[in-house]
C-alpha cells in the first residue's frame, strides 16, 4: 500500500492501529455512511503520475503558454509586471511561513504576526492612513468590502462609484451589493476622469460612500480634492482604490481626507500569475478601526513584559460574531502580504520613489514616442504609468500584428466598453526598456 510518498502508513501500522481501535477492517470505520450514498467505483479522474512524468506533464502545460518574461508586455489594467528582488521568493520559501496557518497560537507564530504588523505599518505609510488590516483577497474585493462597511456604518444604502474604476471591480461590487440589497449608482466619465458635475448631481443624503480609483483605470490621476469636497459635504465616506506603487510619488489619499483606502499590493513582489493570488489591502482612519473587516495584528506584551504580537479586535470577526459579523472573510492572503512586505523592505524608502518615478518617466516617454508616430492619446490629463491611445482600427487586430513581432500589446478597451474597440490601454513599468518601447512604436506604425 506504500504507493504514495505522502502517505506513511505501512501494512503493519494499519494492523496495529485497527487492533487498538478494536475493529477488524477499515470498512468498519465507514459503517456509518449509508450504502445508498456510498460512492462505488473508482473516481474517473486522470491517473497518478510519478514525479518525473508529472514534471514533464506540468512543463508541457506551462510550455503551452506565452509568458510575459519571454515577451515584452504592455498589459497592465490592474495587474502589473514589476521588478521582483530575488530575496522575496527565497524568504517566502522559508516553510515556517508558508506551511503555517492563521496565527491562532501567538507564542509559536511571532514571525508571521510581526511580519504582518510590519506590513500593516508599510501600508499606512504609503496611503497616509491610521491603520491597515492584514490583507484582503485582492483589490476589487477589498473595494467591495469597503463599500459594505461604509453602508453598515452610515446606515445608508446608496453607493456612488465612478465609471473610471476598474470594470471588474465594478462587477464584483455589483454582485455583492445585490446580496445586501444596496444600490450602486455609477458616475459618468469625462475626459478619462470622474465627471465631477455628475458626481455632484448624483450625490444625495442617502449616499453612503463615493468610490474613485487613483490613478484610475485609464491611468489618469483623479482630482481627489474635489471628490473630498463633494463626499464630505454630508456624512458619507470617501473610498479611494489606489495602486500602492503610484503612492511612491503621488500625494497619498489619506492627505486628501479619504476615509478608506484600498487596493492591491501585487506590484510589490507578487507575480502576475494569471490574475491571482494577489494581495488586497485595506486602510482606514482611526474612526473606523472597529468596523474593519478581516484580521488585525496588534502589539502587546507577554507576562514578563516582552514585546509581542497577537491577532486583535477579534470581536469584529465571523468566528466570534457569527451571524452578527459584517464580513465573512476568514482566510485572506497572508503569505502574499508577507511577500509584499519583503519586497517593500528591499525596495525601501528611496527605492520606492525611484521605482514609481521610473514608471512615470517611461510611460511618458512611450506616450511621446507614440505621438511622434502620429498616434493620438485619448486623454490629456496627468497620468502615472498607463495611458490610452486611440487607433484607427480595432485593437484586437493590432495586437495580433504586434504579437507577430514578438510584442504583447496593451489592453483592448473594447473588452469592457462598447465603442472603445479602437482604444488601447498601455502600461509601461520600470521593466520596459527604451529599446522595447521604440520597437513598440515602430511595430505599431507598421500595424496601422
Amino acid at each position, binding site marked *: 500500500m506504500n*504507493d504514495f510518498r*505522502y502517505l506513511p502508513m505501512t501494512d503493519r*501500522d494499519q494492523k496495529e492501529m485497527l487492533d487498538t481501535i478494536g475493529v477488524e477492517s477499515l470498512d468498519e470505520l465507514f459503517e456509518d455512511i449509508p450504502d445508498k450514498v456510498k460512492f462505488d467505483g*473508482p473516481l474517473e479522474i*486522470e491517473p497518478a503520475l510519478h514525479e518525473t512524468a508529472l*514534471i514533464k506533464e506540468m512543463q508541457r*502545460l506551462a*510550455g*503551452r503558454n506565452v*509568458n510575459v*518574461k519571454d515577451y515584452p508586455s504592455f498589459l497592465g489594467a490592474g495587474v502589473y509586471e514589476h*521588478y521582483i528582488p530575488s*530575496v522575496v521568493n527565497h524568504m517566502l520559501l522559508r516553510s*515556517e511561513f*508558508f*506551511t503555517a*496557518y492563521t496565527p*491562532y*497560537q*501567538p*507564542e*509559536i*507564530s511571532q514571525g508571521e504576526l510581526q511580519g504582518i*504588523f510590519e506590513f500593516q*505599518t508599510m501600508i499606512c505609510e504609503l496611503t497616509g492612513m491610521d491603520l491597515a488590516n492584514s*490583507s484582503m483577497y*485582492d*483589490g*476589487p474585493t477589498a473595494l467591495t468590502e469597503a463599500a459594505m462597511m461604509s453602508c453598515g456604518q452610515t446606515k445608508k444604502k446608496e453607493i456612488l462609484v465612478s465609471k473610471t474604476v*476598474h470594470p*471588474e*471591480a465594478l*462587477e464584483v461590487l455589483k*454582485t455583492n451589493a445585490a*446580496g445586501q440589497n444596496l444600490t450602486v449608482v455609477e458616475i459618468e466619465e469625462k475626459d478619462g476622469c470622474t465627471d465631477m458635475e455628475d458626481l455632484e448631481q448624483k450625490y444625495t443624503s442617502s449616499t453612503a460612500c463615493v468610490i474613485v480609483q487613483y490613478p484610475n483605470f485609464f491611468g489618469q*490621476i483623479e482630482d481627489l480634492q474635489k471628490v473630498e469636497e463633494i463626499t464630505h459635504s454630508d456624512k458619507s465616506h470617501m473610498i479611494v482604490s489606489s495602486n500602492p506603487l503610484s*503612492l*511612491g*510619488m503621488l*500625494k497619498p489619499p489619506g492627505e486628501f481626507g479619504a476615509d478608506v483606502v484600498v487596493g492591491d499590493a501585487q506590484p510589490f513582489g507578487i*507575480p*502576475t500569475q*494569471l490574475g*491571482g493570488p494577489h494581495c488586497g489591502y485595506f486602510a482606514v482612519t482611526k474612526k473606523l*478601526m472597529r468596523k474593519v473587516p478581516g484580521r*488585525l495584528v496588534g502589539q*502587546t506584551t507577554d507576562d514578563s513584559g*516582552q514585546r509581542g504580537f497577537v491577532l*486583535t479586535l477579534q470581536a469584529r470577526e465571523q468566528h466570534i460574531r457569527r451571524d452578527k*459579523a459584517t464580513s465573512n472573510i476568514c482566510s485572506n492572503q497572508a503569505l*502574499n502580504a508577507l511577500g509584499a512586505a*519583503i519586497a517593500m*523592505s528591499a525596495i*525601501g524608502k*528611496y527605492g520606492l520613489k525611484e521605482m514609481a518615478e521610473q514608471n*512615470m518617466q*517611461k510611460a511618458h516617454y512611450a506616450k511621446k514616442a507614440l505621438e511622434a508616430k502620429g498616434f493620438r492619446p485619448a486623454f490629456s490629463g496627468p497620468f502615472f504609468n498607463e495611458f490610452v491611445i486611440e487607433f484607427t482600427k480595432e485593437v484586437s487586430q493590432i495586437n495580433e500584428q504586434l504579437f507577430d513581432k514578438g510584442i504583447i500589446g496593451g489592453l483592448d478597451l473594447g473588452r469592457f466598453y462598447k465603442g472603445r474597440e479602437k482604444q488601447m490601454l498601455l502600461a509601461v513599468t*520600470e521593466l520596459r526598456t*527604451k529599446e522595447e*518601447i521604440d520597437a513598440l512604436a515602430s511595430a505599431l506604425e507598421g500595424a496601422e
Partner: protein
Amino acid sequence: MTTENQALIFEMSKEGRIGHSLPELDVDRIDLDELLPSSFQREEAAELPQVSELQLVRHYTALSRRNHGVDSGFYPLGSCTMKYNPKINEDVARYPGFAHLHPYQPESQIQGAMELMYKLQTSLEEVTGMDQVTLQPAAGAHGEWTGLMLIRAYHEGRGDYERTKVIVPDSAHGTNPASAVVAGFEAVTVRSTEEGLVDLDHLRELTGDDTAALMLTNPNTLGLFERQISEMAEIIHEAGGKLYYDGANSNAILGITRPGDMGFDVVHLNLHKTFTTPHGGGGPGSGPVGVKKDLVPYLPAPIIAKEGEHYTFSYDFPETIGRVKPYYGNFGINVRAYTYIRTMGPEGLKQVSLQAVLNANYMLRRLQPYFDTPYEQHCKHEFVLSGKRQKKLGVRTLDMAKRLLDFGYHPPTIYFPINVEECLMVEPTETESKETLDEFCDAMIQIAEEAENTPEVVQEAPHSTVIGRLDETTAARKPVLKYSREAYVSTKS
C-alpha cells in the same frame, strides 16, 4: 526556534542603505513638475525600511524561526486539515509559464493554463459529484457566500422571493452564518442531538416555505458523519430549499462518498485544506464552487470550456449572479491543487481519506481513557475531546493547549465547536506517521497526568516558547496596530 527578541525592520533601518537593484532609467528624465502638478506630488517619502539585502535576509529568517509550520512539526488543528504541502507543487507554481501570465493575454497565448483549469474543474466535478465547477472564489468563506448567492438567484429566478432563511447547525463554522447574512439571508440555528448529529425533529420544525437552504458540513465539525443525510436532503428538498455542502471537511470522503450523491446542490472545497495547497499563515487559499445542473445558469462567468482541442472562456451564463472575483480566481493556488491531484490519482485520493480517518480513530481510542469523549461512534477525519475532567482540577483546555507548545506541537483547535464544553478538536491528517501520532498521544497523556499531579506545570505553560502568554486584553483595549513613526524618528536620532 530562536529565543532572541527580534527588532522590527523599521528599527534596523539606517538612512542611505539599500536592498534593491532597480534598472537604470534609460530614457531622458523629464522634470517632475512637467509631468505632475505639484498639488498631486507626494511631499515626504513613505518611511519604508532602509536595509541591506543581508540584513533583510537575516530579519525574515529570524522571523521564520519564530514561527511553527507543518514542516516544523505536527499541526493537528481541527477542521483546518494541516497536511503536508508538497514541494513539487511549489516548484510547478513558479514555472514562468504559470507564474508570469497576464490575465488579459488572449486565449491563444494561455492554452496551457486554460487546459489546466479545465482539467481541475472536471476533476473537482468528479470528486464532488457535481455538474459544473467554478474556480473563481478565493477562499472557503468566499465560496460559501458565492454558493449562497447562487441559491438566492435560483429561488428568485423562479419568482420565489420569500425564501429568506438559511439553516445552519449549532456546530457549524462561524463563516457559515456570517456568509448567510452577507448573502442577504437570515441565519437560523438547528440544534444537535446528544449524539452530536443534526436534530431532525428540530430541522423539520425550522423548515418551511421560507427556507432557502441548509448549510451542512459532512462529516460535521465534531468529526461525525451525518448518517441521516438523505432524510435531511428530503426534508429540505420537499420544502423547496437547497442543500449546501461546506467542503471544509472533505478530507474524510474522497472517493468514499460524494456531496452530489448525498443530495447536495452546491458545494465549495477548500483547496488549501483537502488538496494540499499551503495555508500561507492565513491564505491565499482557493474555494472552488460546484453546482448541480439547475444552478448552472447562475454561475459567475467565465467558466473554462473545451471546443475540440481548444479551450475557451465561456461567458454564456444568462442568469449569472455576476463576478465574485476579478480574472480567473487564485490561479497560482489552483496550479498546486492540480499538481497534487495528478500526483495521487483516483486510488491515491481514496487512500488519503481512508488513512486520515484511520489516524483520527486511532488517536481517539488511545486518548479516550484520559479525556472525556462526548461521542461514542467512530469518527471520520477528526474528533473532539472535552477537557471537562481537567477543568475540575483547575486546568483549562487553554492551559493544555499552551502546554502542548512545550512539546513542539501546534495545539488542536480549542473551544470549537461551541456546543462541546472545553473542547479540543484534533485532526491528524493522513500525512502523519504512526510514530508522530503516538508521540503526540504520549504528550497528551502526560499532560492529563500533570493536570492531576502538578497542575501548575500546565497552568503556567508554555515554558519553552520564545515568548510567554500575551496580554490580549490590553491589545484590544488600547490597540497598537502599526509601528509609530514618531518613535521611528526618535530611534534614529
